[in-house]
């Protein structure tokens, strides 16, 4: 998450955060195979002021299983960046009820550090040292 518009003033995620415009599912990283910095910045693809949200796998299952019958799937990627920790969750669109459950399950661990609702123009992209990349 990198836009403060996606959070309430109380630091809670807004349910609209879980709308999936691409219909490809939402991406996250397995904490065991990643670092906070690497996940925050999407391994260099996202702005360095991005925030970080934490879910437990169990919470995702409980929130989404009824409708989508889906499991969080470990899905390592190579393109556009190599990311062994990548996980795809929730393919398809969620109902408002399910989004509510996801909001309850989410913990905002790091809020976006750029507090502007309308961020400054790019370039946002940063380059991570190679040591942060999974082997």
């Amino acid at each position, binding site marked *: *998450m*990198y*836009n403060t*518009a*996606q959070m*309430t003033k109380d630091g809670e995620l*807004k*349910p*609209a*955060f879980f*709308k*999936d*415009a*691409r219909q490809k599912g939402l991406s996250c990283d397995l904490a065991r195979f990643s670092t906070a910095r690497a996940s925050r910045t*999407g391994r260099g693809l*996202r*702005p360095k002021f*991005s925030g970080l949200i934490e879910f437990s796998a169990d919470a995702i299952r409980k929130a989404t299983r009824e409708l989508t019958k889906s499991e969080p799937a470990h899905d390592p990627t190579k393109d556009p960046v190599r990311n062994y920790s990548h996980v795809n969750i929730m393919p398809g669109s969620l*109902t*408002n*009820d399910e989004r*509510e459950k996801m909001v309850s399950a989410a913990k905002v661990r790091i809020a976006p550090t750029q507090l502007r*609702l*309308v*961020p400054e123009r790019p370039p946002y992209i940063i380059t991570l040292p190679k040591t942060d990349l999974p082997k």
Partner: protein
Amino acid sequence: MSDTAMMIPELAIGNILSGSRTRYRLGYVTDCVEDNSILIASLESQYLAAKHEVKLYGQLIQGWDGYDGEAFKPDTIAEALSALEISYRFLRNRQVELKAIIPGPASDGSIDLEFRTDQKKLRLTFDPRMNHVSVFKKDAITSTENPVPIDAPHLENELGWLSS
């Protein structure tokens, strides 16, 4: 010092309990609220903050969410602002005590407007691909979701649920 100023607290309380005309000592503090000015000012403050935020959505560019988030169409923003104003007027007239008005941008270009009271949530979703507004209502027991035409009478009908 006048006799009003010298009135002892016990006597003042006695007057309140007996319903007789009360004379207060100077500086006497009560819990009585003469009008709903705080409620209305709070509602106005929330309305203005939400309006400001929705207007800012017009400046968000493609990819605003860090992924493929769509830019918001002027028509969607206008619809949300119009509904916000209708809601504000309705809630002010009904003197509904709101906890928060929360606008929410979504990556598919739709805008949520959420109205929260202590027990209830009502969320309006304005989707540029739909010619109706989606209304989601949730309280401690149930939740429902249904499409409603975008006009004042229908919106007011839905908002009435918050005060029922």
